[in-house]
């Protein structure tokens, strides 16, 4: 058990290091174009570029630079943003907080919704309710986030005039502005989680121990709640944890669309403006969050599943 834990954490650290090497090679070396040109633009003279390289230590050997770069990252020195003319850390932290709020509400709505729908359709596979839920799931998963954002805006903002169309929170935090972004994310993702829950539930429902519970005359409600759900909800736990990875992609589109001042919009802005230090920091944060949530999912799964826990 402890060995497994250490293995998982070891792999997590290994992944982060490899990812940092990939990021460094892509953004900081000449592999995909000169970084000096990327920062200074196409019209900078060779002399200017040389000066810039010298100033920012680009003329040192690649290995040395990588070690320094990683060291800076590990000690929390994320560099300066060109666009915001300030330390990346100060730009990044409030944005991360905003995205955390959005993510929290998205999950707070999506998890109960998709679990209930998944369990309901998995209870009786092939029933009309099951078919309706799964076709609805396919339908909502087929609409890309930007398209559902357009549809919802057309309906709730321009049509019914219930909700504000942008979520920049310019006049302080307003819960109303959070509704549309969260709704778009929930609608896109709940179908997938519901489908996974359904598969898990359906598998449990065909197992021998449920059959014997039904046959010995237990009330159906008790069979579902006490016997089936315990096993059926182990797999969705992993699926939900993995949705954090997906959410990091989803927030980019949604925050860009609704002008929400979050982390996803910042990452996109950094990439469109060639703000390399900011882009690196955002990408590293995204990967760290993604990899840690995967590790937690794996470890949590072993804890929840007695068959693995006691072996």
């Amino acid at each position, binding site marked *: 058990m402890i060995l497994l834990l250490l293995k998982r954490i070891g*792999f997590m650290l290994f992944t982060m290091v490899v990812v940092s090497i990939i990021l460094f090679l892509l953004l900081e070396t000449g592999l*995909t174009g000169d970084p000096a040109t990327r920062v200074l633009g196409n019209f900078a003279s060779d002399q200017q570029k040389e000066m810039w390289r010298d100033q920012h230590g680009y003329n040192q050997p690649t290995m040395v630079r990588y070690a320094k770069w990683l060291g800076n990252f590990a000690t929390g020195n994320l560099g300066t943003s060109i666009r915001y003319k300030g330390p990346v850390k100060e730009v990044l932290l409030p944005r991360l907080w905003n995205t955390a709020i959005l993510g929290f509400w998205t999950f707070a709505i999506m998890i109960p919704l998709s679990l209930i729908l998944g369990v309901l359709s998995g209870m009786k596979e092939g029933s009309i309710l099951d078919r309706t839920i799964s*076709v609805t799931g396919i339908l909502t998963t087929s609409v*890309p986030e930007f398209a559902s954002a357009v*549809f919802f805006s057309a309906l709730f903002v321009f049509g019914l005039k219930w909700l504000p169309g942008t979520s920049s929170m310019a006049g302080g935090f307003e819960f109303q502005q959070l509704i549309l972004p969260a709704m778009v994310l929930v609608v896109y993702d709940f179908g997938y989680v519901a489908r996974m829950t359904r598969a898990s539930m359906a598998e449990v429902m065909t197992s021998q121990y449920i059959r014997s519970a039904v046959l010995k005359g237990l009330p159906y409600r008790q069979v579902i709640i006490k016997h089936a759900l315990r096993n059926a909800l182990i797999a969705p736990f992993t699926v939900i944890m993995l949705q954090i990875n997906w959410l990091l992609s989803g927030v980019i589109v949604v925050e*860009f669309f609704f002008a929400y001042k979050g982390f996803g919009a910042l990452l996109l802005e950094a990439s*469109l403006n060639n703000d390399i230090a900011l882009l690196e920091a*955002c990408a590293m944060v995204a990967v760290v969050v993604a990899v840690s949530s*995967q590790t937690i999912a794996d470890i949590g799964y072993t804890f929840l599943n007695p068959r693995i826990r006691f072996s």
Partner: protein
Amino acid sequence: MTTQSKTQMPSVGVGAAILRVIKSFGLLRESWVGMIGVFLVLFWVIVAIFAPLIAQFDPNAAIQPFAKPGVVAASGSTFWLGTDHLGRDILSRIVWGSRTVLLYAPLATLSAYTVGILMGLMAGYRGGLVDDILSRISDIILSFPVLVLYIIVIATIGASGMNIVIAITFASSPGIMRIVRGLVLDLRNRDYVAAAQTRGESDWRIMLFEILPNARGPLIVDACLRLGYVIITIGVLGFLGLGLPPPDPDWGGMVNETRQMAMVFPHMTLFPCIAISSLILGFNLLADGLREISLRD
């Protein structure tokens, strides 16, 4: 004689496999969900093929800005879906845009599948160190949030059709590899594989002609789903301004260019969104229908 039979064998195998695939699509008639999917996909394929005949206007020509749907142009043709802020006919742009999507999405999927299948076959059949290395690489790539990966790759190699194909191949072949690997692990201990090994067939021959055709079922379903995802990706990249360079029509890009005016001119954004959603829905329903049929046998 022996050389002849050797050269004929694969062609017969491939022919039969294709025939079986067509037959399984024929079975789709039994699933109404699958039939709707086929209809939606075929609709857009036909639109893409006959784009020059359907589109009344040049998709990049600025004719009459801010026309509402149904306005008649000076030339006598109607802007059925209106025009955008630059005066380009939206219907023509959607029609020509279907070509872009239906060119790059299958191309990217095919390329990802080629890489993913080769990696999966190697990892599953050879096992050992090859498997370890390939699996670790794919674990690492899959641990990236997808869109973050796309943004970084596109930001560094630039936005163009070919680069989108490269980025999608890079990001989705590990997922395909995992599926193929799992299927191969199941299939490689079958009798017909052992028979081929005793016949002295080469590893690649066994992988490509004995194992792969038998793994096709789940792969076809996954390919349909993945085509849907790839279309979403291309649309999202276009929407984020990282897609194909303007002015050629691209559904995601159309939404990006006009979304600031959506309040006054909702038609500019609504129609491209309906177009892309219906095509993705088509592939997803098709995948669902195919899965239902494959479970039935």
